[in-house]
């Protein structure tokens, strides 16, 4: 009994429930006529799509800035990269690479300003991040209306002003990573090798970074600011670095999301982009002040698994689509759980 209790304490009760729930969904799948390979394939595609967005949260959590609800700032940088690259008429791998470079530039600039701001509001980062994110999305919505874009694939035809709400990247770089070295088995199973490889590669880079001097300094700032100050670490600088990294990773993350999804969503699209990523990393066991790459992997897999499996199983069994409601309850319940706990991390 105590053994189970300790396990529950280590792993976190909500995470156990979520894992069991997902397990039950997968076990039930063959009996209710849900195509398991297709579901697994869907889950993999989604992990590839969303993985880097989840990864983007790690630096800021590590530096003690909390959950980056302002990830939409990074998303905006990514959108700028994507639209400018399309405006320039670049297609294929080149278009994608240029989009990444441009978005990283914007991400660095936005991240720097955002980091400067967060340094002046230590202790209240999360709420401010949320609203800074929201208001920048709205400023950008105005910008999408008035920026002088010309490419006919992106602007409204007759009678409209500004860019379209959704822009297809078909013919530019749709599935450029998903289809790179893709493993296709039958009609229903597809493994998006490219996207997953990029996710693993970026995770490796982050892992290496956090074992180098700057990375360990960032962790020190997050876990023990007093000690960090005493050992001569420039706290504000480390925090800015982490915010910039987070924003730039967010920019990369949205580009990878878009190449797989096939569309760029402007205007209010990025408004809530941060929330699923935050829910995922918390489901993976991260706390408000500590996150590991294991948290990222487990979290992305569990969260995307639930998102894929819930609608198909519920539709097959109950003939109702409650997936939206379940998604809302699971993800926000997880964030709530993390906020109300003393910052302790599950293994």
């Amino acid at each position, binding site marked *: 009994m105590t053994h189970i209790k300790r396990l529950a304490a280590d792993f976190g009760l909500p995470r156990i429930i979520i894992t069991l729930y997902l397990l039950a969904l997968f076990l039930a799948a063959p009996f209710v006529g849900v195509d398991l390979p297709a579901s697994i394939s869907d889950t993999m595609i*989604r992990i590839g799509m969303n993985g880097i967005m989840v990864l983007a949260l790690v630096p800021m959590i590590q530096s003690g800035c909390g959950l980056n609800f302002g990830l939409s700032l990074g998303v905006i940088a990514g959108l700028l990269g994507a639209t400018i690259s399309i405006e320039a008429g670049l297609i294929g791998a080149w278009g994608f690479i240029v989009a990444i470079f441009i978005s990283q530039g914007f991400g660095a600039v936005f991240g720097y300003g955002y980091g400067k701001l967060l340094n002046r509001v230590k202790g209240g980062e999360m709420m401010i991040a949320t609203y800074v994110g929201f208001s920048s999305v709205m400023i950008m919505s105005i910008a999408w209306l008035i920026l002088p874009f010309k490419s006919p694939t992106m602007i409204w035809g007759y009678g409209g002003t500004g860019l379209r709400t959704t822009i297809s990247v078909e013919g530019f770089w749709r599935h450029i990573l998903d289809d790179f070295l893709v493993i296709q088995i039958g009609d229903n199973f597809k493994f998006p090798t490219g996207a997953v490889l990029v996710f693993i590669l970026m995770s490796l880079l982050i892992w290496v970074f956090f074992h180098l001097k700057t990375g360990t300094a960032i962790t020190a700032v997050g876990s023990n600011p007093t000690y960090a100050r005493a050992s001569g670490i420039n706290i504000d600088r480390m925090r800015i670095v982490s915010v910039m990294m987070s924003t730039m990773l967010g920019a990369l993350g949205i580009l990878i999301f878009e190449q*797989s999804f096939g569309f760029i969503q402007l205007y209010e699209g990025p408004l809530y*982009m941060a929330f*699923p990523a935050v829910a995922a990393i918390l489901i993976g066991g991260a706390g408000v002040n500590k996150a590991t790459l294991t948290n990222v992997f487990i979290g992305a897999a569990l969260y995307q698994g639930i998102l*894929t499996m819930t609608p198909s199983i519920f539709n097959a069994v109950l003939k109702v689509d409650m997936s939206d409601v379940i998604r809302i309850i699971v993800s*926000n319940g997880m964030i709530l759980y993390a906020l109300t706990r003393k910052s302790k991390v599950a293994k």
Partner: protein
Amino acid sequence: MSSRSLIQRSALLFALLVLSAWLFYIGKAHTLLIDTNAVTLDGREFKSAEAITVSVDGKTPEDMGRAERILVSVSGQQHRIVIEVVSGGARKVEKRFAVPTFMDSALVSIPAILGDAAPEHWVTKFTAADREDTPAEQMQHEGDAALPTPPDAKSLPSKP
């Protein structure tokens, strides 16, 4: 919790429940179908007058001929109806009647009131023919499902 505050709280709760019941009783809406069709009660036929005006609970009077029906929305049980007979010998009848709380739609028979039939015949329960499913909602619902959704539409974070 002391027993005194327990009693106070129970009393408050009880008062609220009584208040709710009372509010329900006085606020319950009824649809009255004011009807001038001739009725036969206990073998006797009652007929309405040629032209009358009807007013319920002091609302603007409405003109009615024979064999007509008008709709009036009221709330509560007790109502006052004023019927003015315009044709023939002009006279004014003012009566009170009650609609049972759980009767949503009630048929109010003018001939029965004018002919001084027993009050239990004035108001009868009205049951409409089974209504068909409203097609508009049906279509909207099916339309939603039939919308072409991109393969991964569900993975889009909409609202948190």
